[in-house]
């Protein structure tokens, strides 16, 4: 399986994603420069975290106009797997590949810590190695992860099972106290209608080695690989 990790100016988790894919998953991986226009050679594209273009205007707002994003949109339209992590999620929202938008965390500051996430849909390319209701312990690290969408969008997301991960307590209870950033409905990760585009605020690459405190992020990587192998 061949991954492409997209690098925007200001990305800062691209090396982390590359490291996990290369050294932990032991799969093929390339960096994809933001000016590239052909991404067809990859089996999965990763839009990593960071502060693309400094996130000076709005998170992800400038990155979405990078030449590579047109290619990413075409790739996604044809069913290619695209995962956006943190800033990558914000870029997917700005690019309209996923619905909704991000507001500032309700606490008004950056939060970096482990959170618990409830898997809401386990029949996706991203979560097929998990069970519904399973709790994953994965870190977040962001300033703008307060997901918002209009009522109609939210209803669609719910009805179509496109809310994939929600912030929860360690026992799996989804509650206001377990919501770190004010996100609507405790949303931590969503998919597009075709389930081939996935955006999430938590960083699975930071929870992929026991040495770093959790391997729960591996559930997501393993799901991607299982999906790919099943298809292949």
């Amino acid at each position: 399986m061949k991954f492409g990790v997209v690098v925007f100016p200001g990305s800062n988790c691209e090396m982390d994603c590359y490291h996990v894919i290369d050294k932990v998953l032991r799969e093929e991986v390339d960096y994809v420069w933001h000016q590239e226009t052909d991404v067809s050679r990859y089996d999965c594209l990763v839009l990593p975290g960071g502060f693309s273009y400094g996130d000076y205007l709005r998170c992800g707002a400038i990155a979405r106009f990078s030449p590579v994003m047109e290619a990413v949109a075409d790739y996604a339209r044809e069913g290619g797997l695209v995962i956006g992590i943190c800033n990558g999620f914000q870029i997917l929202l700005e690019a309209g590949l996923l619905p909704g938008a991000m507001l500032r965390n309700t606490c008004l500051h950056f939060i970096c810590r482990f959170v618990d996430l409830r898997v809401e849909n386990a029949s996706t390319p991203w979560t097929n190695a998990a069970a519904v209701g399973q709790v994953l312990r994965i870190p977040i690290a962001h300033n703008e992860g307060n997901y918002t969408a209009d009522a109609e969008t939210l209803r669609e997301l719910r009805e179509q099972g496109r809310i994939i991960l929600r912030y929860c307590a360690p026992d799996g209870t989804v509650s206001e106290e377990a919501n770190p950033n004010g996100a609507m409905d405790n949303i931590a990760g969503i998919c597009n209608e075709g389930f081939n585009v996935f955006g999430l605020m938590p960083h699975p690459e930071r929870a992929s080695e026991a040495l770093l405190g959790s391997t729960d992020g591996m559930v997501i990587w393993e799901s991607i690989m299982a999906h790919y192998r099943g298809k292949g």
Partner: protein
Amino acid sequence: MKVSVFVSPKQGVLDPAGQATLGSLKSLGFDEVSDVRIGKYITLRLEGIDADQAEERVREMCERLLANPIIEDFRVEIER
């Protein structure tokens, strides 16, 4: 030509910074404040374009980049 763009959170969309500031103002005794919205003020300098065209172009800039229509409204002022 100088153009001012005011970007503000849409009515109905939560504005965490505005809410926090509202709380602070009230705690300082400014009880008359009932709402605070915090947005951005962007100035542009345009060349080689007339004011009517400019209005349309700047609106397009706002829709495409300067504001996110899902969460933000914008207003354009052109100094003629």
